[in-house]
C-alpha cells in the first residue's frame, strides 16, 4: 500500500491516534491531515484542567513540527466542506482540494444544543474545545451564577469548572437523575446528594422551554413545570451528536439518529472511506469515549496495512472523579439483561452506593455501579471483562470489611485481561515486556505505556507487575544491600525512631558486616536528612562518596570542580569579578552551568580549601553541586523587570533556594520559578517548579530533564507565598522520607501507589495526619543549616585531609592540562589523543 495517499479529516484525539498508528505501520504512504480547529490534536479528556491552571498548550498531543518529522502534511484551521466519493477528493471551506486513495473521517461530534427559544444568546455556550473554554472563562469573568444544562459525565465536569471559576453553580437535568446512562437510580441519587453537599445545586426533571432576560441576572430560564431559574451564563452539555454532515451530503449511509454507519473494519458504505471515533455508528451505537475510538483507529489501520483486526465494539465502563466524588460504571449498570439480579450496598452516612448486576445463576458479573467509593472498580472490571466466575457470595465483593473478601489477585487474570484500557495493554503484553527484559514497574510503564493515560489502573498494574516478578522467581529484593535487610524508607524510620546518629550505631543495631559503597552514602544521606550534622564529622567522613567527602565534584582526571551558590542566578558584579579572579589565579576552566551558576574546573584536592577561603571571604557559600541535595532554583527575571512578569520570580527563587539549601535527599533536587506562564525558567522540567499567575503561584512537581525527561504535574494552584512554602516543605520532606536511594522525584511518583492523587491527599489534605511533623522536620533542617565549606576551612585538621599525599606537600604530578579555546582541559594520554599537536601546560 506504500504508494497510497491517505487523507484524514479531523484532528481530534482519535484522528491523531490513527495517524500515529498508521505511520508506525507504514513508513511510506502519503498522509494528509485536515482539521477544522486551528491547533493540532490535544487531550480533550483533561480539558477541565485548564480551569485548574493548566496552560492549554500542555494539553497538546502533537505539534506541526512533530507531524512534519513524521512526513505528515497537515492543513489545520480549515474545515472540509465537500466530499466527492466518485472523484476521490475532498475540498475545504478555504477552497483547497485534496485527492485520496483512502479517506478516513474522524470528524468527532458536536455538543447538542436543544432547540430552546433564546438558546442562541451569547451567554449560552458549549463545552468541547479549547476555544469553548476561553469563551466560558471570558463570560464567567462578569458572572455570578452559572448553569450547566445536562447532568451527564461532561456536564458534571463542566459544573466543576464553573465552580472552580468561582460561580454559584447549578446543574439542570431533564431526566430524573444524574448520569442516567452510567448509573441506576440509586447511584444517581447518592451522586446528586454528594454533589449538592459540595455546593452545586442539582435540579432534575427540568425541561428548559425558554431563555429570556433575567431580573437579578442576565438570563432567566423557564421550565416546563412553570418554575424559573436566574443565571448569568448557561453551558449546554446535553449530549453529543455525531459530526456526520459531510457523509450525509456525499451519500454515505448514516444512521436514523445520526452517525456514519461502519462495519467491523470501520469501513463506511464506500469501501475507500473509513469512519472512526464519535462520528461513527457501529452496531447502532455511538461510542462517546476515547478508548473505543482508539480501538476503531487501530482496526482501520490494520485494515489499511493488510492485516485486518476487527472492531467488535468496545467496553464503555468508566471510572472517574466528578467534583471530587468517585464514580464507576461497568457494563450493564441498569440490569437490563433477562434474569439479571442485583445486589445493592448503601451506606447513607458515608454516602457510598454500590450495586452489582449478576446473571441469573449468580456466576457472571454483568454490570456494576459504584458511587462514593471506587476501590472495588479494578477487580470488578476484571470479573466483567474476562467473565471470571464470581465467588459463591458475590455480595462479598462490595460489602466492606467482609471476612475473607475474595481479593481478585493478578494471578487469577487471563493473559487477555486488559490492564490499561487507555493504551489497550493486556496482562499478556506486560508479561511479554518482562520476557524482553523490562523488569520493574517504571520500565514496564515506559515500555508498554500502561498506566500513563488516565492512571486509573495504577494499583492493578502494580499488582500485575508484582505477580510477574514473584512467579518468575524475581521476588524483588528491596534490601538496600547485603549489610542491611531493609529498604531506604525503612532505614530512614529506624534512624528516626531509634534516634540513631551514626552509621556504626545503625550497623550494630540493624545490620551486619562492614558496610559498602551502597549503604554508606545512603545512610550518610539519611543521617543528614534527619539530623543535619556536619557531613565531614569524623563519624561520617568515611561514609561519603568522594564528591561529598571533598565537597566538590570529581572529574575524569581526579581533579574537582567548584560551584558556589548563586541563589536564583542573581549575582553582583563584584562577586562575579571574584569568581573570575579565583579562576584566573588557579587556572581553572570556567563554564556557565544549566542551573544559572558558574562552574570552575580543574582544581586539585589540596587547592580546594585555599580557593574556598577566598570565595567565603567574598561572601560565597557552598553550592552543594557535589551532593544529593537541593542544587539550584533557576529563575526568570520576573515582574521586577519583565514587561510580562506578574510576580517577583527572582525574589521567590532566592527565598526557596535559601530555605532548602543543604537539604540532603535521596537524589539531587532541582527547582525553578517562572514569573508568568511564558515559563522562561522551565519550571515544568524540575523536581518542583513554580509558575506565577495572576491569582498566585502554581506549583508543579516531579518533573525532570535528563535521560528520560518528564513534564512536572500541576500540584496546587493560586497559592500565596506562605502557602507555597508550606506545601513545598511537606512535599520535599515526604519525598526525603519515602523515596528509594537515588530515586528522583519523577520515578518516585511513578512508583507511588495511588500516584498524584494520593500525593495530593497526603500533602494537601493531610490524609495521613503527618503534615505538621513534615513541616517541623523541615524547619529543623532550615534552622540548622551551615555552609560546609566554612566549617571546613575553620578546622585545620580537616583541611589537612584535602592534601593529595599524607606524607608530602606535592600535588599529583599526573594531573596535566593542555589548552583549548583559551582555557585548560585535561591532557588526554597520547594513546587516546585524536591528534598530537597539543601544547603542554603544567598543572
Amino acid at each position, binding site marked *: 500500500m506504500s504508494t497510497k495517499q491517505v487523507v484524514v479529516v479531523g484532528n481530534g484525539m482519535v484522528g491523531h491516534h490513527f495517524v500515529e498508528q498508521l505511520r508506525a505501520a507504514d513508513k511510506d504512504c502519503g498522509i494528509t491531515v485536515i482539521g477544522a480547529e486551528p491547533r493540532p490534536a490535544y487531550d480533550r479528556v483533561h480539558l477541565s484542567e485548564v480551569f485548574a491552571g493548566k496552560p492549554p498548550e500542555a494539553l497538546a498531543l502533537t505539534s506541526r513540527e512533530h507531524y512534519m518529522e513524521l512526513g505528515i502534511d497537515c492543513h489545520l484551521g480549515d474545515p472540509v466542506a465537500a466530499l466527492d466519493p466518485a472523484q476521490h477528493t475532498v475540498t475545504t471551506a478555504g477552497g483547497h482540494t485534496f485527492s485520496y486513495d483512502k479517506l478516513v473521517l474522524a470528524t468527532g461530534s458536536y455538543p447538542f444544543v436543544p432547540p430552546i427559544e433564546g438558546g442562541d444568546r451569547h451567554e449560552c455556550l458549549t463545552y468541547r474545545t479549547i476555544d469553548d473554554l476561553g469563551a466560558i472563562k471570558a463570560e464567567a469573568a462578569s458572572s455570578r451564577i452559572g448553569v450547566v444544562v445536562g447532568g451527564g459525565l461532561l456536564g458534571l465536569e463542566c459544573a466543576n469548572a464553573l465552580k472552580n471559576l468561582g460561580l454559584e453553580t447549578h446543574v439542570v437535568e431533564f431526566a430524573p437523575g444524574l448520569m442516567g446512562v452510567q448509573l441506576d437510580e440509586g447511584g444517581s441519587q447518592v451522586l446528586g446528594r454528594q454533589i449538592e453537599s459540595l455546593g452545586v445545586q442539582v435540579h432534575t426533571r427540568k425541561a428548559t422551554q425558554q431563555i429570556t432576560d433575567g431580573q437579578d441576572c442576565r438570563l432567566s430560564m423557564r421550565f416546563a413545570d412553570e418554575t424559573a431559574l436566574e443565571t448569568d451564563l448557561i453551558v449546554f452539555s446535553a449530549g453529543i451528536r455525531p459530526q456526520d454532515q459531510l457523509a450525509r451530503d456525499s451519500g454515505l449511509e448514516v444512521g436514523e439518529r445520526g452517525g456514519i454507519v461502519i462495519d467491523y473494519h470501520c469501513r463506511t458504505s464506500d469501501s475507500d472511506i473509513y469512519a472512526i471515533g464519535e462520528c461513527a455508528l457501529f452496531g447502532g451505537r455511538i461510542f462517546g469515549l476515547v478508548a473505543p475510538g482508539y480501538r476503531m483507529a487501530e482496526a482501520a489501520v490494520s485494515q489499511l496495512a493488510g492485516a485486518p483486526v476487527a472492531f467488535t465494539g468496545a467496553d464503555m465502563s468508566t471510572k472517574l472523579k466528578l467534583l471530587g466524588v468517585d464514580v464507576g460504571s461497568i457494563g450493564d449498570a441498569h440490569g437490563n439483561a433477562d434474569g439479571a439480579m442485583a445486589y445493592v450496598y448503601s451506606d447513607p452516612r458515608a454516602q457510598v452506593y454500590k450495586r452489582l448486576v449478576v446473571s441469573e445463576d449468580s456466576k457472571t458479573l454483568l454490570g456494576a455501579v459504584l458511587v462514593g467509593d471506587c476501590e472495588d472498580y479494578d477487580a470488578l472490571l476484571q470479573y466483567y471483562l474476562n467473565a471470571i466466575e464470581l465467588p459463591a457470595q458475590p455480595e462479598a465483593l462490595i460489602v466492606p470489611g467482609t471476612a475473607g473478601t475474595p481479593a481478585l489477585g493478578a494471578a487469577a487474570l487471563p493473559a487477555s485481561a486488559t490492564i490499561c484500557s487507555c493504551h489497550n495493554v493486556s496482562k499478556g503484553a506486560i508479561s511479554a515486556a518482562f520476557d524482553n527484559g523490562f523488569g520493574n514497574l517504571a520500565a514496564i510503564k515506559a515500555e508498554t505505556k500502561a498506566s500513563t493515560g488516565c492512571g486509573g489502573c495504577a494499583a492493578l498494574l502494580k499488582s500485575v507487575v508484582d505477580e510477574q516478578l514473584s512467579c518468575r522467581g524475581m521476588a524483588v529484593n528491596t534490601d538496600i544491600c*547485603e549489610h542491611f535487610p531493609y529498604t531506604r524508607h525503612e532505614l530512614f524510620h529506624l534512624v528516626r525512631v531509634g534516634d540513631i546518629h551514626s552509621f556504626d550505631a545503625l550497623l550494630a543495631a540493624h545490620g551486619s558486616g*562492614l558496610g559498602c*559503597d551502597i549503604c554508606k552514602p545512603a545512610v550518610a544521606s539519611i543521617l543528614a536528612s534527619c539530623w543535619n550534622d556536619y557531613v565531614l564529622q569524623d563519624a561520617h*567522613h568515611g561514609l561519603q562518596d*568522594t564528591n561529598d567527602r571533598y565537597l566538590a565534584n570529581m572529574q575524569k*582526571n581526579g581533579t574537582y570542580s567548584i560551584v558556589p551558590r548563586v541563589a536564583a542566578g542573581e549575582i553582583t558584579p563584584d562577586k562575579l569579578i571574584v569568581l573570575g579572579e579565583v579562576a584566573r589565579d588557579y587556572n581553572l576552566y570556567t563554564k556557565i552551568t544549566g542551573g544559572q551558576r558558574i562552574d570552575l574546573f580543574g582544581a586539585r584536592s589540596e587547592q580546594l580549601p585555599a580557593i574556598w577561603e577566598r570565595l567565603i571571604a567574598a561572601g560565597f557559600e557552598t553550592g552543594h553541586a557535589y551532593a544529593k541535595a537541593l542544587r539550584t532554583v533557576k529563575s526568570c527575571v520576573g515582574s521586577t523587570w519583565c514587561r510580562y512578569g506578574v510576580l517577583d520570580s527572582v525574589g521567590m527563587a532566592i527565598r526557596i533556594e535559601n530555605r532548602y539549601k543543604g537539604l540532603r535527599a535521596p537524589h539531587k533536587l532541582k527547582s525553578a520559578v517562572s514569573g508568568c506562564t511564558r515559563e522562561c525558567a522551565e519550571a515544568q522540567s524540575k523536581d518542583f517548579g513554580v509558575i506565577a499567575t495572576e491569582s498566585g503561584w502554581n506549583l508543579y512537581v516531579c518533573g525532570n530533564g535528563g535521560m528520560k525527561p518528564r513534564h512536572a504535574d500541576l500540584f496546587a494552584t493560586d497559592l500565596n507565598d506562605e502557602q507555597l512554602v508550606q506545601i513545598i516543605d511537606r512535599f520535599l520532606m515526604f519525598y526525603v522520607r519515602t523515596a528509594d536511594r537515588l530515586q528522583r522525584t519523577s520515578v518516585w511518583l511513578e512508583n507511588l501507589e495511588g500516584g498524584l492523587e494520593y500525593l495530593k491527599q497526603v500533602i494537601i489534605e493531610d490524609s495521613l495526619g503527618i503534615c505538621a511533623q513534615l513541616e517541623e522536620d523541615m524547619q529543623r533542617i532550615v534552622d540548622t543549616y551551615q555552609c560546609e565549606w566554612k566549617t571546613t576551612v575553620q578546622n585545620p585538621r580537616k583541611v589537612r585531609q584535602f592534601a593529595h599525599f599524607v*606524607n608530602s606537600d606535592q600535588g599529583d604530578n599526573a594531573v596535566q592540562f593542555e589548552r583549548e579555546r583559551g582555557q585548560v582541559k585535561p591532557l588526554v594520554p597520547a594513546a587516546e589523543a585524536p591528534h598530537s599537536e597539543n601544547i603542554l601546560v603544567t598543572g
Partner: protein
Amino acid sequence: MGNWTTVCAVDDIPPNSGRCALVGTHQVAVFRVRRTNKDEFYALDNHDPFSGANVLSRGIVGTVDDKLVVASPVYKQHFCLQTGACLEEDIDLTTWAVRVTGHAVQLAP
C-alpha cells in the same frame, strides 16, 4: 621485604578510609579498616586503571560478599584490599605490605 618506609601516623588515616602516600615515585593508597575495635591496614596502587586517575585512596571502603574492598570513586569498580584483584574485570593491582610500628604506618613493596 625489610625495606620499610614510614609514611604517616595511624591517626593520619581516619578509620574505614584511605589516604595516599608517596613512596619514591610511587603513589600508594593506604587503607585503615576498623573491625571489632582493631585496626587492619592494607595498601595498593593509588592508580585507578579504568579512569587513569590517581584516586583509589578516595574510594569508599567496605565488604562485598565478605571480601574487603575499596570502590573506585570514578567508575565504581571494586578492588580487593587483600589481593588487589578487581571484582568486575580481569585486572590486578599491585599490593604493598603494611605494618604498624608504635604509631607509625610503614610500607614495603
